[in-house]
């Protein structure tokens, strides 16, 4: 019953730290010769700061350029540009609202469809996937991210739109037509088609980032919850998702950013007509799409200025949406104690 813990293994060699000789060793001399490194340390800080500032510079340059190039419409319509539905190049009467509406609606539809699916994929990959499937499955999800958007557009026109038109939409109209969100005429293309194709496009981003943050949650957290008698889903909810939630929101915001700015695939299926209405099967138009479609044919300065101001609107919408998302995170985590690590 004596004091020091017992050792199974033979006592290790005394480490070099313990046996310091009076004369400084080679290593010590080398380390001393490196001096204080204060200058390189400070230089490193400045270089990193510069990198960070370049972000501000880029954003500021873009904003300034957008505002400068859309002076004509800004001075003519003022703030009303963002709240008007008119789009009449012949009479030089412009408003951005239908495009803002189309972009926001298709993007939020995309999130609605993609987020649960992406989190499900991530949960399966991190928590329950047999080892041999994990590699191939995550490779496939990431492959989805590498497909050019024009290919998604073609696939949407030839595969997705027919499926929606012939199978899904009739069901939606029958079951949910009374809500007003799903009513004819059934073109196949439209806001819903744009939302679905966007969902497929942002799925890989959200699921692979979510998978990363979930993998980073330490195993001890899972064990802690399991040992309390949690089922697998309860363990994932309390031990994994809760710890990873900020990272997951971050991945959703990145996905949303991609959805808001996506041009090609959306242009091919959204219908390209500036309408506002609650019918998701109806046609729409997005900000990025109208710029892509009409910029080359914008003959006069006013028309061009209007299109650039749409770009400015997209820029602002992105900022506002990001701000709101952050507000949401703040509101959700407000009650919780500040996280320490």
């Amino acid at each position: 019953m004596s004091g020091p813990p017992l050792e199974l293994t033979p006592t290790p060699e005394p480490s070099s730290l313990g046996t310091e000789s009076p004369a400084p060793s080679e290593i010590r001399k080398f380390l001393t010769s490196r001096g204080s490194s204060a200058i390189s340390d400070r230089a490193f800080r400045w270089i990193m700061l510069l990198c960070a500032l370049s972000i501000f510079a880029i954003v500021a340059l873009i904003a300034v350029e957008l505002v400068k190039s859309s002076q004509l419409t800004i001075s003519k319509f003022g703030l009303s540009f963002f709240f008007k539905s008119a789009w009449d190049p012949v009479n030089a009467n412009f408003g951005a609202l239908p495009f803002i509406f189309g972009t926001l609606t298709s993007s939020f539809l995309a999130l609605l469809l993609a987020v649960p699916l992406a989190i499900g994929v991530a949960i399966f990959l991190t928590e329950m996937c047999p080892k041999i499937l994990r590699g191939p499955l995550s490779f496939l999800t990431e492959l989805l991210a590498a497909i050019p958007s024009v290919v998604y557009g073609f696939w949407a026109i030839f595969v997705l739109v027919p499926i929606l038109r012939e199978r899904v939409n009739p069901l939606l109209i029958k079951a949910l037509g009374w809500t007003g969100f799903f009513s004819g005429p059934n073109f196949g293309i439209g806001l819903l088609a744009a939302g679905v194709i966007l969902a497929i496009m942002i799925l890989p981003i959200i699921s692979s980032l979510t998978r990363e943050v979930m993998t980073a949650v330490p195993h001890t957290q899972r064990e802690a919850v399991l040992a309390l008698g949690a089922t697998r889903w309860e363990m994932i909810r309390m031990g994994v998702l809760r710890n990873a939630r900020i990272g997951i929101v971050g991945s959703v915001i990145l996905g949303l950013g991609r959805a808001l700015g996506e041009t090609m695939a959306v242009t091919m299926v959204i219908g390209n007509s500036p309408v506002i209405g609650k019918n998701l099967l109806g046609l729409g138009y997005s900000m990025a799409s109208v710029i892509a479609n009409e910029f080359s044919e914008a003959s006069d300065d006013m028309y061009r200025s209007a299109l650039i101001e749409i770009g400015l609107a997209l820029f602002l919408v992105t900022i506002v949406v990001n701000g709101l998302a952050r507000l949401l995170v703040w509101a959700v985590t407000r009650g919780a104690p500040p996280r320490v690590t």
Partner: protein
Amino acid sequence: MGVGIEVSNLNAWYSTNHTLQDINLHIPANQATALIGPSGCGKSTFVRCINRMHETNPIAKVTGTVRIGDIDVYKDASPVEIRRRIGMVFQRPNPFPTMSIYDNVASGLRLNGFRNRRVLDEVVERSLIQAALFEEVKNDLKKKSGASLSGGQQQRLCIARALAVDPEVLLMDEPASALDPVSTAKIEDLIFQLKSQYTIVIVTHNMQQAARVAERTGFFLNGRLVEFDSTHKIFTNPGDKRTEDYITGRFG
């Protein structure tokens, strides 16, 4: 009230490493039982076989029977049910960093859908008092994160979390290994008080600790249970030469 644990022919593996070999023992109810043995001999593995945490490791395998009370842990119940009856405290404290102290303690009950505020308040307070932590945290129950406490406080928080679900058995895997003498003494006091109500299994490298808190002690070596007897007998008159060598420090 605690229940006894009956282990027979327990074998456990990590892939091909036969970590536990033919373990047989009876852990009596409402007592503390200490498990000692050199590092890597399989104490943690043994404890994790009792509440079926071993099988959460994909390379792990286990055979044999473990009974708690009249339940065969591997036959009559799901792992979830078993873990609801057996509390566990890990070697390294693992409070939930995104939850307040209160929520940490309440987590086991909340998991199971328990929502009654008044009872939750009572249980949280009682568990924290039992774990000798209440006085230190009572003003920040809902303000501070579980991870903002000191290591020793975190460990007592984890004990409170385990006690809140009123387990029949409490498994503690070296609960004091990362703690200072004061926190260690608190945890030992705690075990001393708790053992009249719970069956406690405690893994420890500290033999004085085993002698202080446990009625019975088991000595593990290389995946086998060499000797299992009253603590007094193990430390004063061990039946096996290897036990004697280990506790006197004349090992190998």
